[in-house]
Each structure stands twice: as structure tokens, then as C-alpha cells.
């Protein structure tokens, strides 16, 4: 049966409430008698706390209570870290500091007041004695004996880890050339447009706590918070209403989430905290933060023989949920899309007096891709080869998949040549090189950058994940024939309400308007893992797909029973379940495939079907759903109802890939970098909704442009956060972005039955090196082989105008 919905550019069913301003994010939920919380946060990067005097603040009208870390003691369990590495040092991380503060923004006290303005006022009236302590900010300095972040550990090294296969020493020793380069993946702030927010309400009678939180992982958060505050997990309900973006920053369990739950239990009233943007940049996780050293060995024909990456990972002062694990993803992806026989990563994870780093869109893989793609360009530059030629030389061939890397992975499927060829064609690569030659003759500074990337997605098999790599779905057909889907993959902008409904409508043969997708409420939805790691469609969507298969198996049996036929004689087709052979379809084809972009919610309400079976040769799923609920005539021993739940455990990751090409021109007078073209060909396997895939890729590329050119979380040597607001932290604006020319190839995976791979992070992984490679290419006549991010016009200007950089 041809798909009516899957594969089409369908506009989203979730949009009407969002474009009308009628959706509900956490701060839009208003409960009577809600108290408001504001935090006093450390203004120092490292200090011993002396007296904390809250007496003046408590006298202010409207102030209800103030809690400090000393009040809490160990009443709330530590903020969890799921990255279990051998010999990992784990500092005791509580929601509020008691004796020491370790970074600017470290929460010290929570003020509870009747009004959010009063709560903020009262924060200023709390007197804290700080005894300043030495600070360490630079990760290399921290590793090599700088000031101690946590004195009790004796050094700042949280862990060391070596991974990779092949004899790297021999590979580098026997290589024709070994090229070395230091590279920096600067700290970034995820900046979801909706900051974090928590609303907690404890009902003392029912002994039930509900926490509304802007999170990507409602179920995992429920489990952890229940453990932290000691409430039975089945008495804690977590609801993620509309979530205004996450990018990994809400793939976490934060102290504030547990603390608000606990305070609500103390006061018996709802309490709300909405993070300010300043708090968001201070105390919501950062991403990246790697300083590393590349050694790449190659033969003189461009064959890469070995790659070593020694990296200092700037973890910050504490571990959040996945902090130490992020660099391990970098290690896994160091083969890129190349056959490299020997690979080694040596990670030194270090504490610094800064906010924790953790998963930011891409989470370790953009760092790896940047390292590999810069390394390939360094090889090309060293050998005087074209960057495309070096890439081709080291690609595995399409018939070599599943392809085993020296990092221990099996890439599921790929055709790297095809994506590269398409991108080169779309960009007109040969012409661009001609144009560049001319430009150089005219004294213009033009560069072309290529990145051929592969990413690890659809996280993942449970073996490789700290808290389960599966995802769940329940599919239910209600007595009226409407379809309800419960997914554990709670979205925050990805559009699962549409894409999952597309899958369901096709598989169930119903209209998409008859499908409702419910998510983000732990009391309604079966346990799930969440939306991150480009996994929602490939893992969560597959759970929907297989749950429907299960449901149809049962429906098939009911159909056979009602049609008084053997199960083997009943087939599924356009008319539902029919006796074989399926009766010719006359009327149904008249309308044909529905027009694109069906407005959701405008289908006529289906009349309640009568369970009239006699004489029928086919039964729709709706007929069967009603019969299953009336349960007057079901096969012997069959459960009434028509629903199925499936927990899908993938057997491997998926490995989407692609080629990005950036073309830039540099202004000699100002050092400014202008995009002339941006061409991307991405392969994320089978596509459910091309419109949504384009949106994911575009958004990701623009975050990459942010990393390449604009964004950096800057702390000064005292650990003061210099980029503490959006005035100083440069998120890309519309004017900074070129038109993005997107295209796709489609190489399905066999990891899941739909062949989908995932696309949420492709842009942030593939684009950054393409942009930096383009800039380096532009500057190569000036002897430049590498330049660090963010590439600021002043640095470029200095190179172009031959001023010695102060770096």
C-alpha cells in the first residue's frame, strides 16, 4: 500500500496553538497560591562561605521562607551523574552550596516569596561572607597543577581515559608524514530560547508531588528526583508542557528541579522558579570545551595511517548528568568517514571553576568531526593535494558496510561518495576552484571548505547507554476509531506530534487528523527515555511502528473471527482487513491521495461506526476497534480492547552522513567573513517528513555558524563570566546567515524497519569544519594552516595585514 503521509512535506499539527500564542510553557501554567522562588548565586568563582545572614531578607513583606545549603544538609540527595567511568572522581554536588562555592552562578540560597519581584528583591538583602580562594579556569593549567578546584582530590584530574584500536605508535612512526596541530573546541552556551523553569505542587492529602519542568527527559528526571528527595516514584508526576528548545541543555537533572519539589513538600503550596537568561548562561550546562592536540600520520599519496588526539576536556566544577561521558563520544567518532587503521584518544577530564559542560547538540561528535575534518585538510595542505581527493582516497566503499572502525564501532550503512559527488555537483566545485584562482589573481580572498562527516545517532543500544537506549510507544484505537499514541520520546520542537502521526496514519490506513500524539506526562505515558541524540524518530518512531504491527496482529485475528474466515485468509489493504483476494476498489481511488498539507483538525468527525458485520467482506480498523471494546463477539480467550505497547531496543546505533561545502570571502579591510554559498547534502536514511528534516538541518547549520564565527562562553582569569547575557554572548541573527542550499541522498539503515537514521544533530556536526576549512583555505596564501574558533574578524585582519597575533 503506498504511503499517503510518510515522505511528504507536511506542515505540523502542533503549530496552530504555537502561532496563536495559546500554547503552555512552564511559566504559562498558573496555579492558585503559587509562591515564587529566586536564587542567590555566587558572584565568585571559588570561595569559602562564611556567615550567611538572611534575617533582613526574611523581614521583607511577602517573603515566606529562605533555604540555604546549610538548612538542607543532606536532606536532598546529590545531583546525579550517570557517566560511570573507571576511577572517576565525583564531587558531592548538592542543589545548594553549604561551605564552598565553585563557580560563578553556584546557587547558595533559595528565596520563597508571594511575588517574583519580591523574591528578587529579597535575594539582594541576604548577606554572605565570602573568603575568596584561588581560581583555575584554563583546562590545561588545571591539569598541570593549577589551583585546586576540589581540595580533597589533591589534583584537578577527574579521570583519564585511553581508547582506540591499532598500533598508533607504529602507525605514526612508519608514516610518510606526521602532522601535528593544536585545536580548540570552545565552550558554548546552548541558549534554548525558553530558559529552564520549574513548577512544583505537593498535595499533602494525596501525598502526590507534581513537577512541571522544561526538560527533555521527563521519565528519567522523575526517577532521579524521586531518589533525591525520597518520595516514592509512583507518587511523583513529571509533566513537560511545551518545551522551548533544549539542544541538550535540558537533557539533564538539575538541582533546582529536586529543590523545588522538596520546598513544595515543606510548604504545602505550589512553588515556581523561572530561570533568567543571566542564570541560564551561568548555571545551565555548557557544551564543547575541549583543548586538544592532533597527530595525524599519512603516506605521501594521501592515505591516512593513524590519528591520535590528546585532549583536555574542561568539565567545569561538577558533573552534571553526562558530563564526563561526552568526550567518550568524541573518541568513538574519531575515524570520521575514513578507513584509519590506528586511532587513539587520550582524554584528561579536568575540573575548573566554571559551570559543568555536558551534552550540547552533537555532544562530543562535533568535536570529533572537527578534529578529523581539520586533520584531513592538514594532510591535503601538507601534501599539496586537493581536499576532495584526500577524502575520496580514505573513504570506505559502499560495499564495505557494515564497516568496522578502529574505535570499535560498526557503521551500519553508507555511501559517502554519492553524498560528496552530489554536493560537489550542486556547488559546482570545479568552477568554484576556477573562480577562486581568478579571485586570487584579483587580490580577493576567497575560500572553499569541505566537510564529509558521519555521525552516531539513534542512541542507542542499552548496552551503550547509562539509562536504557530503547524507546516506548503505546498505540490505542479508541471505540470511536480515533487513534491515540503515547510516546516516551517527549519532544521540544522536533515535531513528533506530526511525524509520528504520519507513521501511524499510513500504517493504520486512517486520516492523520484522527491521530493524537501524547507525550511528556509520566502519569499518562509509559516509561520512556526522551528526545536527544537524534533518536526520537529512529527509536521512538520505530516503537510506534512496531506497536502498530502488534496491534494489527490482534485486529487481524478479530477480523478473521468476525468475517468467519481463517486468519491466513484475511489480508490488510486499503479497505482494512479483507477476505482474500481483496475486493477491487472503485470509489476509494476517486479522491486519490489527499492534497498536501492537510489542515489538521478539519476532517469531519467520524460517525460512531455500527458493528454491522454480517455480509461485509472487509472491516476497517475502526470497525474492529468498536467490536474490540464492545467485546460481545471476540475470539475465545481474547482480551477486549485494541491497544499495543512496544519498547523498541535497537541492535546498533545508526550512522547518518553527508557533505557540507562552505564558500567564503574575506574583506581585506575589516577581516570580516562573508558567506558566498553554503551547500549541504545530508543522508539521514529514510525521511518521514522532508520539511521537518530541512528545518532540523538548517537550525543545526546555523548553530555551527555560531560556533565557527561568533559564540564563545568567556570566563576571565578570576573565573568571572564575561559573556553573561545575550549582549555579550553572540547568538547568530538572521542577517548573519547565508541561504542554505540543501539536498539529500537516501541510504536506509537495517537497524530499524523503517530505515530511518536521525537528523537532529547533523547540522552542528557537519557544518563547523566546513566553515573553518573554508576560512583556512581562504587564508592559505598567507601561510595559514589552522585558525581557532570563533574566527573573529580581528584575528583574520591581523593575518591578512601581517600583524603578529598576540596569541
Amino acid at each position, binding site marked *: 500500500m503506498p504511503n499517503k503521509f510518510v515522505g511528504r512535506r507536511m*506542515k*505540523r499539527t*502542533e*503549530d*496552530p496553538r*504555537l*502561532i*496563536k*500564542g*495559546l*500554547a*503552555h*510553557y512552564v*511559566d*504559562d501554567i*498558573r496555579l492558585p497560591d503559587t509562591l515564587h522562588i529566586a536564587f542567590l548565586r555566587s558572584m565568585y568563582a571559588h570561595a569559602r562561605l562564611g556567615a550567611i545572614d538572611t534575617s533582613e531578607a526574611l523581614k521583607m513583606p511577602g517573603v515566606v521562607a529562605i533555604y540555604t545549603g546549610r538548612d538542607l544538609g543532606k536532606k536532598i540527595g546529590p545531583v546525579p551523574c550517570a557517566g560511570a567511568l573507571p576511577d572517576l572522581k565525583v564531587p558531592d554536588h548538592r542543589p545548594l552550596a553549604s561551605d564552598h562555592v565553585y563557580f560563578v552562578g553556584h546557587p547558595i540560597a533559595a528565596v520563597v516569596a508571594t511575588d*517574583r*519581584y519580591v523574591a528578587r528583591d529579597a535575594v539582594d538583602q541576604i548577606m554572605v561572607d565570602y573568603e575568596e580562594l584561588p581560581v583555575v579556569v584554563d583546562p590545561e593549567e588545571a591539569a598541570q597543577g593549577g589551583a585546586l578546584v576540589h581540595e580533597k582530590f589533591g589534583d584537578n584530574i577527574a579521570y583519564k581515559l585511553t581508547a582506540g584500536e591499532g598500533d598508533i605508535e607504529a602507525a605514526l612512526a612508519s608514516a610518510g608524514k606526521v602532522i601535528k596541530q593544536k585545536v580548540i573546541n570552545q565552550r558554548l552556551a546552548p*541558549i*534554548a*530560547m*525558553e*530558559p529552564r523553569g520549574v513548577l512544583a505542587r505537593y498535595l499533602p492529602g494525596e501525598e502526590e508531588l507534581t513537577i512541571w519542568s522544561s526538560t527533555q527527559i521527563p521519565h528519567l528526571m522523575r526517577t532521579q528526583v524521586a531518589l533525591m528527595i525520597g518520595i516514592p516514584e509512583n507518587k511523583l508526576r513529571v509533566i513537560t508542557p*511545551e*518545551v*522551548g*528548545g533544549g*539542544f541538550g541543555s535540558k537533557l539533564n537533572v538539575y538541582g533546582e528541579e529536586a529543590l523545588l519539589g522538596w520546598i513544595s513538600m515543606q510548604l504545602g503550596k505550589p512553588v515556581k522558579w*523561572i530561570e*533568567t*537568561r*543571566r542564570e541560564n548562561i551561568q548555571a545551565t550546562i555548557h557544551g564543547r570545551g575541549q583543548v586538544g592536540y592532533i597527530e595525524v600520520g599519512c603516506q605521501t599519496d594521501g592515505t591516512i595511517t593513524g590519528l591520535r588526539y590528546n585532549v583536555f576536556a574542561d568539565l567545569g566544577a561538577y558533573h552534571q548528568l553526562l558530563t564526563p561521558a561526552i568526550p567518550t563520544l568524541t573518541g568513538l567518532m574519531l575515524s570520521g568517514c575514513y578507513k584509519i587503521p590506528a586511532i587513539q584518544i587520550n582524554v584528561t577530564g579536568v575540573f575548573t571553576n566554571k559551570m559543568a559542560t555536558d551534552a550540547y547538540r552533537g555532544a562530543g561528535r562535533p568535536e570529533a568531526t572537527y578534529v578529523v575534518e581539520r586533520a584531513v585538510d592538514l594532510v591535503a595542505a601538507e601534501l599539496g593535494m586537493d581536499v576532495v581527493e584526500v577524502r575520496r582516497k580514505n573513504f570506505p566503499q559502499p560495499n564495505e558496510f557494515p564497516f568496522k572502525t578502529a574505535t570499535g564501532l560498526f557503521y551500519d550503512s553508507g555511501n559517502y561518495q554519492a553524498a560528496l559527488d552530489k554536493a560537489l555537483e550542486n556547488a559546482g566545485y570545479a568552477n568554484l576552484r576556477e573562480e577562486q584562482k581568478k579571485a586570487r589573481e584579483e587580490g580577493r580572498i576567497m575560500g572553499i571548505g569541505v566537510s564529509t562527516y558521519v555521525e552516531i545517532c539513534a542512541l542507542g543500544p542499552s548496552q551503550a547507554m547509562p539509562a536504557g537506549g530503547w524507546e516506548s510507544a503505546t498505540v490505542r484505537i479508541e471505540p470511536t476509531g480515533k487513534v491515540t499514541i503515547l510516546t516516551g520520546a517527549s519532544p*521540544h*520542537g*522536533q*515535531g513528533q506530534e506530526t511525524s509520528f502521526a504520519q507513521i501511524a496514519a499510513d500504517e493504520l490506513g486512517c486520516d492523520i487528523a484522527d491521530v493524537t500524539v501524547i507525550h511528556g506526562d509520566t502519569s499518562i505515558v509509559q516509561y520512556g527515555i526522551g528526545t536527544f541524540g537524534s533518536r526520537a524518530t529512529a527509536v521512538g518512531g520505530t516503537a510506534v511502528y512496531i506497536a502498530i504491527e502488534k496491534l494489527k496482529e490482534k485486529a487481524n485475528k478479530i477480523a478473521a473471527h468476525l468475517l468467519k474466515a481463517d486468519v491466513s485468509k484475511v489480508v490488510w489493504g486499503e479497505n482494512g482487513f479483507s477476505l482474500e483476494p481483496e475486493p477491487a476498489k472503485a470509489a476509494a481511488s476517486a479522491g486519490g491521495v489527499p492534497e498536501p*498539507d492537510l489542515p489538521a483538525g478539519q476532517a469531519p468527525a467520524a460517525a460512531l461506526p455500527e458493528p454491522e458485520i454480517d455480509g461485509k467482506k472487509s472491516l476497517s480498523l475502526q470497525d474492529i476497534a468498536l467490536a474490540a471494546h464492545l467485546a460481545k463477539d471476540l475470539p475465545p480467550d481474547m482480551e477486549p480492547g485494541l491497544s499495543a505497547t512496544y519498547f523498541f531496543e535497537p541492535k546498533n546505533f545508526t550512522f547518518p552522513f553527508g557533505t557540507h561545502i562552505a564558500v567564503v570571502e574575506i574583506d581585506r579591510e575589516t577581516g570580516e567573513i562573508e558567506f558566498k554559498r553554503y551547500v549541504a547534502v545530508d543522508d539521514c536514511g529514510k525521511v518521514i517528513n522532508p*520539511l*521537518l528534516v*530541512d*528545518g532540523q538541518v*538548517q*537550525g*543545526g*547549520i*546555523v*548553530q555551527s555558524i555560531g560556533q565557527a564565527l561568533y559564540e564563545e562562553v568567556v570566563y576571565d582569569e578570576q573565573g568571572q563570566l564575561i559573556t553573561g*547575557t*545575550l*549582549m555579550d554572548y553572540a*547568538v547568530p*541573527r*538572521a*542577517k548573519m*546567515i547565508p*541561504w*542554505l542550499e540543501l539536498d539529500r541522498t537516501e541510504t536506509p539503515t537495517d537497524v530499524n524497519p523503517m530505515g530511518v537514521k536521525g537528523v537532529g544533530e547533523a*547540522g552542528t556536526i557537519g557544518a563547523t569544519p566546513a566553515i573553518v576549512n573554508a576560512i583556512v583555505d581562504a587564508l592559505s596564501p598567507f601561510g595559514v594552516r589552522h585558525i581557532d574558533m570563533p574566527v573573529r574578524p580581528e584575528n583574520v585582519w591581523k593575518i591578512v595585514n601581517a600583524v603578529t597575533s598576540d596569541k
Partner: protein
Amino acid sequence: MKKAIGINVNGTTRQTEVEPRMLLVHYLRDVLGLTGTHVGCETSLCGACTVLLDGQAVKSCTIFAVQADGAEVTTIEGLAANGDLHAMQEGFWERHGLQCGYCTPGMIIAATQILERNSNPSQEEIRHGLEGNLCRCTGYQHIVEAVEYAAKKQ
């Protein structure tokens, strides 16, 4: 000391007493319950709080409610007339101009202002007109297309 103000919001004038320091965005959200207008940065940089104040797009997080006394304010909730979507809302829906939706109300309001000043803007002009509004999800391309859709439709 509270101050009495009267603001016409989405066609209805409301008389309220507010603290002089109350921000317009909190007046709209907390007093009137119009939560479609969002707060994203408190420093007038992200534009999530954009509303029309006497026809001008302004950042309601850096205006006091008392400054809007006697003025007309249009929020995202007031944009659809008689239940029909505004062409700009339609454009955002048709062209997938939103993902998480948090910047969207402010973005749509700001975009209507672009077309008011220039009914047929180039892509360059649209991008320039959106400089006061941040979106972290879409990469802006679909937003540019949404504004072009609305321009054609109007």
C-alpha cells in the same frame, strides 16, 4: 504605591492598578493572563516579548506597564481576526517557520511590522527586519520564507 492605568489590549480597554515598576510583559502575562508573549532574555535582545504598542513593534520586557497607559497594545493573541489566522501566522505554519515555538509570537509580531513598512521586501530586507529577534531552532531560512509567503498573500 500602585498606579491606576488603562491600556487597550487587543481591542479591550482594561483598567488596573499596578506597581510602577511592573514590566509591560508581566502586566500582559500575569495580570491579563495573555501568556503568548514570552520572556527570553530580559535585556531586549531576543525579541520573544515583542508586541505592538500603538502600532510600533516594541520589546515589552523593557517597558513599564505604566508607560503604556492610554496606549493600544496588540499581542499575538490579538493578531487573528475573527478566528482567521493572520497571513503572517499562516506563513509561519505553511513554511515551517517555527520549531519549539518560543520565539514565534514575538517573531510573528516583528514580521508583521516588516510588511507594514515594506509590502514586498527582499530576503535581505526581511533578514534585516528580523535583527531584533532571535530564533535558536530554525536557522531563520523558513522564517524568511514565511514572511515572503505572507507578503504574497497580503
